[in-house]
């Protein structure tokens, strides 16, 4: 009889601790959420009324109400394009090689460790490296190309790591089945590994790009400008071959830099502009992350094993 009571008491204490942990967890979650919500609501209350069509099509101006973010969002967009263009092929290829081709020995382990390490390096370090290499050695100047390459290098490790994770999640039986049908390694990768892992890879790519879009430090280090009231050269020509890449060498500014500049002004009207830019940036990141989730779900549905 007594042992039964002891058991009941024991169960009770265990249940009590369970409850305590659940409450603590919930409180932590609420704390994070409430802080985030307060920040966003505060930003939205100041910024949202300022967002209108003119805000997107006007250049920066000394009059807060006339100022817009045209050069900033176009700059951010062009840089994201360049970053994606150089980082995705390199990152995915490197990830596939490391996972599928390279021998697993101490050399590959060192490389692996270094890539993971690189993903955690402060972004300003990349800026310093880019200043020395791209701006001065290769003489690319303070251009969209320099910025794109810098951010490309910054997100490269993230893309490599997520690509590897995505590939690793594919069961080995798929590879074996493919080889059993006489497929070469490349055919297996091309027709099986890459399509099946593309959901995960794309998620990684988009998340890394949404990190890059908010980066300021490395761009300031390479000498990004603050006031620009013109757009990069149009990429289309009237004559053959109809496209050009002159815009890659044009100077640029980006949304976080524009935001920072407005925030440091004495007039509150400029602070409102900064809040509005923050909202635009937030919504863009949200759309990108939403896109990543949607893509992942779509690819998961398409997979038939």
């Amino acid at each position: 009889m007594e042992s039964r009571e002891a058991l009941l008491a024991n169960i009770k204490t265990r249940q009590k601790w369970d409850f305590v942990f659940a409450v603590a967890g919930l409180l932590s979650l609420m704390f994070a959420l409430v802080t985030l919500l307060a920040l966003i609501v505060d930003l939205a209350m100041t910024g949202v009324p300022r967002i209108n069509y003119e805000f997107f099509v006007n250049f920066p101006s000394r009059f807060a109400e006339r100022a817009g973010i045209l050069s900033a969002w176009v700059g951010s967009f062009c840089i994201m394009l360049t970053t994606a263009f150089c980082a995705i092929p390199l990152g995915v290829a490197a990830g596939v090689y490391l996972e599928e081709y390279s021998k697993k020995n101490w050399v590959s382990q060192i490389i692996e460790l270094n890539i993971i390490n690189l993903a955690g390096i402060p972004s300003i370090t990349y800026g310093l490296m880019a200043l020395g290499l791209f701006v001065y050695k290769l003489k690319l100047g303070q251009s969209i190309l320099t910025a794109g390459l810098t951010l490309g290098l910054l997100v490269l490790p993230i893309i490599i790591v997520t690509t590897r994770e995505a590939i690793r999640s594919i069961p080995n039986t798929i590879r074996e089945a493919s080889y059993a049908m006489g497929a070469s390694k490349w055919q297996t990768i091309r027709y099986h590994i890459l399509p099946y892992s593309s959901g995960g890879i794309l998620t990684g790519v988009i998340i890394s790009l949404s990190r890059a879009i908010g980066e300021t430090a490395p761009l300031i280090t390479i000498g990004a400008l603050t006031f620009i009231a013109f757009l990069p050269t149009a990429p289309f020509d009237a004559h053959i071959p109809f496209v050009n890449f002159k815009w890659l060498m044009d100077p640029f500014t980006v949304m976080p830099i524009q935001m920072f500049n407005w925030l440091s002004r004495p007039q509150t009207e400029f602070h409102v502009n900064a809040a509005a830019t923050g909202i635009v940036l937030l919504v863009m990141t949200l759309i990108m992350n939403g896109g990543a989730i949607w893509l992942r779900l779509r690819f998961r549905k398409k997979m038939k094993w």
Partner: protein
Amino acid sequence: MFLNCVMILASSLTLTAHAQVPVIKIDGSSTVFPITEAMAEEFQTAQRGKVRVTVGISGTGGGFKKFCRGETDIQNASRPIQTAELENCRKAGVKFIELPIAYDATAIVVSPKNDWISSLTVAELKKMWEPSAQGKINLWSDVNPKWPKEKLKLFGAGSDSGTFDYFTEAIVGKAKSSRGDYTASEDDNTLVTGVANDKFALGYVPFAYAQENTKKLKIVAVVGGDKAPMKDKAVIPSRESVENGTYFPLSRPVFIYVSEKSLAKKEIGEFVRFYLQNGASIVPEVKYVPLPANAYKIGEEHLNAKKLGTVFGGHSEVGLKIDQLMKREGAQ
């Protein structure tokens, strides 16, 4: 391989990139930025996109490094060029024209709840801010026994700022010499908030920030002393008192430096002329104090005559009248 690709791509790009709209490259001080930004905005509108102007904010020091390497056409500077920078420019063969373009004043601010001071003498400010005050002057009553026995909380510019250089030079007597135990920030809005929220705080901020926050801050008048034009009378910073030099010693001219080599390009000369001709109307719009009208005229004359070099011996000077300054001969 990656680098090779980049290099080939880059060289093919730079070959095609030259036949383009001319670009005027400007960099330097964040204090001067709003003025040059406004000028660039107006100039580009006037030129209807035939000329492009870019403005960066690397700070006066960072900007001079670029300027003396010949990377920029115009340099924004919140203080005159220093000896080491002059040396760099000379080595690289960069010659320049120095043009004062506006006044910037530093305001002493306290909380509106502060009811025991309305003016301060330079000596009192020095007592609060000099390096030897560190650890010794902790209470308001340490400066003046009539003031409350409460902790004196100081707010000021960070040591990379031109405002810091000038404030220390004008108050302590030596640039960059200041006590270290105060709340320093490069962001002037942080200083404004800090002073506004504390009854026992005192800080110095650029005049534009004090003027924009008159509801949150009380601006303290400054007694210049023997060297000042108004002697022992307290002067509050305002457009008039800065313009006529009675707000002493915390007001100073800010400059642009134009590279002589860049002046060979037509659009640079046009831009600088535009800058000087519109200074009187645009400078107040961005909340700075314009120079007297004849100073802009003399500036234009200097530009036409290509008067090279600096009129400062590589260091700042306190309480300088603009007409004296414009008459001096430049040294390179």
